[in-house]
């Protein structure tokens, strides 16, 4: 039982972090906090991807001094790297949007940022 929990520990963490991110996105009214929620959710997804790549006793695909050439295929790690890069780009862009909105509207409250409606 305990070992099962331990082995699924990263996945439990993923769910908890994702819930934190989602609740920040849904319940917070401040744009910056919503964007923090997005970033937290991104971290959860990245953690999930990396966690699926764990192989017990696997050999990292680094050929120098490798004990065997029977190695782990590092696909998910590559996916995670890509996703981190994309995450940085989206966060930077959306935070710059938040900056401009604050300059033009004078607020970061989503309830007041609604010139487009109906």
């Amino acid at each position: 039982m305990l070992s099962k929990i331990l082995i699924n520990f990263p996945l439990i963490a993923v769910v908890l972090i994702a819930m934190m991110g989602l609740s920040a996105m849904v319940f917070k009214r401040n744009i910056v906090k919503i964007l923090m929620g997005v970033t937290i959710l991104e971290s959860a997804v990245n953690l999930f991807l990396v966690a699926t790549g764990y192989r017990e006793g696997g050999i990292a695909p680094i050929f120098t001094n490798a004990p065997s050439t029977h190695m782990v295929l590092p696909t998910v790690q590559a996916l995670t790297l890509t996703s981190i890069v994309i995450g940085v780009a989206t966060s930077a862009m959306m935070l710059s949007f938040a900056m401009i909105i604050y300059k033009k509207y004078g607020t970061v409250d989503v309830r007041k940022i609604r010139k487009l409606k109906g």
Partner: protein
Amino acid sequence: MTISSIAQHLPALLIAVPLLTAFLTPLIGGVNRTLRMLWVALGISATSAIGLALAWKVFTTGTVLYVFGAAAVGQVLPMDSGGIPIRIIFEVDAFSALMIVIASISAFAITMYSLVSESECSGQDGFYALLFLLVVGIMGMVATGDLFNFFVFLEISSLAGAALVAYRVDKGVAVEAGLKYALLSTLGALCVLIAIGLLFAQYNALNLATLASRLQFTTLDKIALALLIVPLAMKCGAVPMHFWTPDTYATAPSSITALLVVSSQASLYGLFRVLFSLYGHLVQFNYATFGWFVIILGVLSMFVGVTMAIPQKDVKRLMAYHAVSQTGYMLLGVGVGLAVLGNRSALNAYGLTAMAGGIFHIINHAMYKGLLFLTAGAIFYRTGTRNLNKLGGLGHTMPWTMVFFMIGALAIAGIPPFNGFASKLMIYESVFRFSPFLSIVAMVVSILTLASFVKVFHSIFMGPRREEFAAAREVPAAMIFGMALLAVVVMLFGLFPQTFIDGMITPAVTALVDRGAYISAILGGH
């Protein structure tokens, strides 16, 4: 480089050429304006030519595979890979080719148009760089045969799209729209990424065909399915997740709005690809449930979209709601096909026709809706307002824009002999066999569409000349050219529907329904 090697590398060039154009535009634009215009025109011509050539190759010789990084472009399964296609593969079948045709024609017309319409604005280097990145995203989404690659291109198109929406800050309103679009796209893309993780963890593959051949429809697969289809439905603007669409479409520069329509149709492509090629024909897959899911989304989109359009006062916001409404027709047509996918006789009797109607509507919609947004842009270019209450009497001074608007408006309302009628007729007649009620809803929506465009036509073009628009003239030739190109395509598709249905639509429907062919193109005999 010889012709044959170009022909061999078309799928790679389809991505490489716009990408190169995008990143060199700021460099070349630094030299001078004229050179930048020439460079952008050259870049988009090359991209569209490559796209059309690739589509031609697919329609004449069948599915084109392209393996990145392999010794030979067709080497799908390397010797030591254990039967897994480990490289990124582009799999361009007839459905992808159809989407590439749409993107090529629209992108060409739109870029030619924006060369003039944006010529007085600042920050042009970034604008064109982002525009080409958006084209890269669209082309990549529809050409790739790899799920993670699809996610990357989805993000490229979302990022470039959001940046372009917010590009002209417009007192912050455009940025508000850009933020809404970016945030929803990011959330959707994260859901897609979780789904990719779920699938990869189980089947050790990212290739769509390989995944499709291994899928067991476990509980995790069901979760992955939901995480794939809901974000993609949101990205194509299906009700009740359409709220971002009017905000974004209304505030973006008009040429960008027309391209965003194509980008959301690329998401529609992804939705259909997941439902048909990835999950379709699985024994446990419940066609009726998911078919009705798509149909309900479609009917809601049609009806809510058009009824929300009628009271609108902003011409682009009105057209954006119509975009939602027209997407409903595509979802309805293809949804009926999905609902009867397991029933061979019903599929042959009306399912395939409904799907053909839905898919024909994708290309028709891209053309006439692009045309309508471009005419709205032309009006904004000359008058500086999008408010229907303030406009009027422009028919005297902008006759060409008026003619193009009429063509677009009649096509979207499904008036013969324009292209919208051909696809809508197919949808009405085949959906009637499935459920007469849905068919009647579709017709009512068409009537409401016509009504709302009569209002737009009346308030923009009719009436006496107005003093405040005395200076309004016809728009420059390049903008007319962009609109004329789309108008000619609208008329051609309307006058010779069967030619295009036989040549492009039927192969696309076959490619979508025939999941085995999609798999065996990668994995060989199955």
